[in-house]
């Protein structure tokens, strides 16, 4: 199962208080639709008891804050207290939060309804947020922390991230973010040591699927920065990364990461031994064809040495030759010219044959647009 599907189904099973994996039958559904369903159901659950929450909040307003805190911890419990907190005026809820023990407050946060608690969390002072976040971290409550990232004040977020020393926690929080556009903000707040710890944790805790998947959401600068850190991990880690990309079909994410690395790292990766295996290359090219990520691949093929380029071309003109038509249609001409200009003499005839058989009309259009390009002279002659 794709790592982002796993994350989404975990969130839904928590909301429904059902065992993990009991919703696996939803694998294959559109993730956006599953998330929208979860949010609607969460708001529905809240609405079912909102009247009770309002009544209990009414009582809470009548008694001193200390007594309310005692009532919450000794009688109501964290689930109900979460509903009541959302019905209190923010200033009252903040005073109450200050009186509650950290572990109770952390449990309460787990059960806050996101759409109802946004304003409350946004108003919460940094010191309380940081305290609760530390407790949530100790509880491995990464889903709740991810929800925090979207709504707390930037100063509170900075205070929390400064204290996170677990790379594993960082990856998981990032994975569970509802709004992945917050990922850049989160990663930019990390020190270089923390970023390295995050990369290291991916290896130590088998989190590469998550890291690769998240890579698609970060900006190019960060992608390059983190990509170079990954590449520094050495050949064994990089080979494992390629296996993960192959198993989870996360090739496009990996290609984006490699494209953002510096040139020396790119050369190392595209010339790893693993990439000479036909099954791996077939998985790569079929995923690229499926996802239309030809530009990302074509930028890297010319960096391969002869020993790696030859098996890649054999797959491209053999088992995956049918995808050439799509490549000629979808990829930028400049990227295709880069590949064709880099073809070894021994590969020209095979490429010409594959194009004639699978992509004749697409080639005609491409050659028509690039009639003067010296990169395709030999291929043009071979195709005739």
């Amino acid at each position, binding site marked *: 199962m794709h790592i982002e599907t796993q994350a989404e189904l975990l969130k839904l099973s928590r*909301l*429904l*208080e*059902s065992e993990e994996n*009991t*919703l696996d*039958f*939803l694998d294959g*559904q559109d993730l956006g*639709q*599953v998330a*929208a*369903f979860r949010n*609607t*159901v969460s*708001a*529905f*659950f809240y*609405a*079912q*008891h909102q009247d*009770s929450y309002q*009544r*209990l909040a*009414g*009582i809470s307003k009548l008694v001193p804050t200390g007594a309310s805190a005692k*009532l919450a911890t*000794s*009688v*109501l*419990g964290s*689930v*109900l207290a979460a*509903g009541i907190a959302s019905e209190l005026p923010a200033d009252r809820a903040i005073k109450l939060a200050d009186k509650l023990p950290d572990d109770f407050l952390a449990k309460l946060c787990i059960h806050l309804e996101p759409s109802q608690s946004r304003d409350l969390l946004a108003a919460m002072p940094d010191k309380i947020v940081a305290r609760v976040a530390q407790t949530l971290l100790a509880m491995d409550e990464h889903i709740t922390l991810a929800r925090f990232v979207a709504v707390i004040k930037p100063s509170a977020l900075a205070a929390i991230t400064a204290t996170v020393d677990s790379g594993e926690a960082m990856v998981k929080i990032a994975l569970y973010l509802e709004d992945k556009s917050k990922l850049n903000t989160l990663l930019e707040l990390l020190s270089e040591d923390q970023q390295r710890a995050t990369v290291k944790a991916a290896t130590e805790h088998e989190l590469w699927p998550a890291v690769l998947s998240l890579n698609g959401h970060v900006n190019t600068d960060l992608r390059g920065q983190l990509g170079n850190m990954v590449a520094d991990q050495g050949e064994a880690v990089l080979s494992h990364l390629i296996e993960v990309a192959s198993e989870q079909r996360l090739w496009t994410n990996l290609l984006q990461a490699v494209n953002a690395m510096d040139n020396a790292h790119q050369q190392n990766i595209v010339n790893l031994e693993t990439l000479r295996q036909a099954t791996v290359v077939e998985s790569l090219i079929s995923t690229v064809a499926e996802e239309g990520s030809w530009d990302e691949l074509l930028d890297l093929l010319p960096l391969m040495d002869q020993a790696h380029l030859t098996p890649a071309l054999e797959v491209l003109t053999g088992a995956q030759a049918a995808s050439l038509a799509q490549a000629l249609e979808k990829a930028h001409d400049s990227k295709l010219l880069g590949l064709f200009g880099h073809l070894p003499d021994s590969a020209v005839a095979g490429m010409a044959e594959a194009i004639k058989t699978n992509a004749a009309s697409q080639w005609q259009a491409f050659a028509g647009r690039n009639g003067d390009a010296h990169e395709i002279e030999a291929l043009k002659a071979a195709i005739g």
Partner: protein
Amino acid sequence: MSDSISTLKAKGLPADALAFIESLPADQGSQLADAVLAAVATKDTRVEKAMNNALNVVPGPFRRPVKKMLFG
């Protein structure tokens, strides 16, 4: 339509959530509706218990007005 889906409809589950459930193959839709309904029941029980507990800790003379506040 399964019993669980009808019950959820009667309880006011919004149309978009019902549409998602109904877009699934019938057995999966029923399974998901059952899970949502079970969660509703768990949460109902929890809230009711907490409301009663809250009432029990209120000193005797205040119990009647508080009960009115809590249960209407």
